[in-house]
């Protein structure tokens, strides 16, 4: 009997659950995307801010034992953007706060540091990472007609989209939730006792919720762009253009001189941030971490994210099956 028989053999075996199909698409997509050298570099860069933000965590926790580091911590934090959210609470403390006073502001300080990390370095990295991962995901399938590989099999549109969303979501978790959770863990390790968990237990949940609010709309928008073209570079261009145009518009609006303000009297200052996707996401995340910087705009920000996500989903559902109907 031959050792290796290369004739056709029938296959009889146990199949996996139908619910694993989306995961097959997702895991293969992750494997393909992970071959990008630029993405590997970005993944590495995603954990560098963790090292930077571990410093204020260390300084804050050290302050309760060594009051001289409190001044260093204050100096460090003052250099961070949007420190105004925390300034009020820090200013009421004396130059040498007691352990109880430290306890009272720990939650706010940790929230602020986690939010700052998510809003600034991580958000920038996310824009770049999604710009690398998402554009080819659907457009390449359309260009190489790979959709026939999927839809000639028992794959539904929902499974296909879930698989593709999973690819982007996986990498975004690596850029948002993972470093933030590690930072939280570092904070716990640096804190004086395990009882700190009792006062900060909600922060991991806020991290996950904040990450979800970031991941869902950005992933769906990026995939919708990808589904609208056969050229992934056009989808990538549209993705970056959306962020740049939004940011430039927002910057221009906040730079309007005071004497011009009368022309925009019906245009409340808070509404300006709705012109920029970056500011909208930031506003929602601030709210989730308990900072009501633009609290009046939170409802509108959530609404915008929901509408954009649903519109993107509708585009995706319509576009992914379009070639099969032709």
């Amino acid at each position, binding site marked *: 009997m*031959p050792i*290796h*028989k*290369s*004739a*056709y*053999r*029938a*296959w*009889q*075996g*146990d*199949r*996996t*659950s*139908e619910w*694993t*199909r989306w995961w*097959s*698409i997702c895991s*293969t997509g992750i494997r*393909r995307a992970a*071959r990008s050298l630029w993405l590997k570099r970005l993944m590495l860069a995603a954990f560098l801010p963790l090292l930077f933000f571990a410093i204020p965590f260390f300084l804050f926790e050290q302050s309760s034992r060594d009051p001289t580091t409190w001044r260093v911590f204050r100096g460090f934090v003052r250099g961070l953007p949007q420190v105004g959210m925390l300034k009020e609470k820090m200013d009421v403390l004396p130059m040498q706060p007691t352990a109880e006073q430290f306890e009272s502001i720990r939650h706010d300080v940790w929230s602020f540091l986690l939010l700052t990390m998510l809003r600034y370095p991580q958000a920038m990295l996310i824009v770049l990472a999604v710009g690398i991962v998402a554009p080819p995901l659907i457009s*390449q*399938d359309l260009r*190489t*007609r*790979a*959709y*026939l*590989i*999927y*839809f*000639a*099999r*028992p*794959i*539904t549109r929902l499974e296909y989209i879930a698989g593709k969303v999973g690819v982007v979501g996986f990498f975004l978790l690596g850029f948002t939730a993972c470093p933030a959770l590690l930072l939280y863990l570092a904070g716990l390790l640096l804190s004086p006792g395990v009882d700190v968990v009792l006062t900060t237990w909600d922060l991991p949940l806020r991290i996950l919720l904040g990450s979800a609010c970031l991941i869902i709309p950005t992933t769906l928008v990026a995939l919708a762009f990808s589904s609208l073209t056969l050229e992934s570079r056009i989808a990538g261009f549209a993705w970056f253009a959306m962020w740049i145009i939004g940011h430039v518009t927002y910057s221009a609006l906040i730079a309007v001189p005071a004497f011009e303000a009368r022309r925009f009297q019906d245009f409340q200052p808070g509404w300006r941030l709705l012109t920029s996707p970056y500011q909208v996401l930031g506003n929602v995340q601030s709210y989730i971490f308990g900072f009501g910087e633009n609290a009046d705009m939170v409802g509108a920000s959530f609404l915008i994210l929901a509408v954009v996500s649903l519109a993107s989903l509708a585009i995706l559902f319509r576009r992914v099956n379009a070639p*099969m*109907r032709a």
Partner: protein
Amino acid sequence: MNHQAEIGASNSEHTATAPRGSVIDLSAVTKTFQRFQALHDVSVNIPTGVTGLLGPNGAGKSTLIKILLGLLKANSGRAHVLGLDVWQQSRQIRQLVGYMPEDDCYLPTLSGVECVQFAARLNCLPAVEALRRAHEILDFCGAGQERYRAVETYSTGMRQKLKFAQALVHDPPLLILDEPTSGLDPDEREAMLNRIRVLARSHQKSIVMCTHILPDVQQVSQYVVILAAGRVSVAQEMSELSRPAVPALNVRTLGSMEKLLLAFREHDLEAHGGAAGTVVVVGDSDECIRRVWRAAAAHDLVIRSLTPARNSMEAIFLDAVRNSTNGVTHADS
């Protein structure tokens, strides 16, 4: 290798089979794209075994395949594949059907074996088993070490093998192959047709082969469906179709064709010159064959081959298309 032996053994001409059960059952299926009617009242039963689905460009073959896979909804009619309703059980159908598309479709950056493994996983084979099965099927398809190369570097022939392997990896009872031999060199083409024969004969797969290469259909198909202008023009057993209106024998000689013709006429055989140096003798009875041998022996002529005459696939196809076009013209006028 065993696989080659298996293929070699199946290389002989197929024989007509007894009436078989149907794998595809269409009844009055109509599909319209805006103003263009792609399928018009298509009713056909496709039996088990190998079926050639033929038709000129734009005849509605691809539309029919998409309807069978449940990817397109027909405007009216009824369709069943493997006894399952196309409109209501399309996912189950796609689980049981292996589809090899005509279009070049691949996932860039994946290697050949990863592509086949991925196809298997989409059909719910466990990951490790899918990889093992992918290698097994690529062996069957004659793919060597190139299976480890990225698919975008593949030649046309290799991509055909890859698509075939992807269609087959989950061991479906029904295969729909769209142009399986296009772009293949003669050796590869023969090997592909042999694989189709092996699957149909030794593994009881039903195969619908959609192609423009008519000799391929004649070589492997037991049943033929010809679509023309969205209508079924012919749906018949290949053995029936191939049989000429008047039974005849094709005779080839090593000597002069004229001498052979003369010899046959002297022995009261009705004969005339055919294509490519063949003499066509009317009749195929045993007595007729005996007389052919006698005539040749009497004139010291060597017979190179003596085969029953068959209608050529080209002639059948052209007749079917012509008739269908005329039908449409008549109907329109």
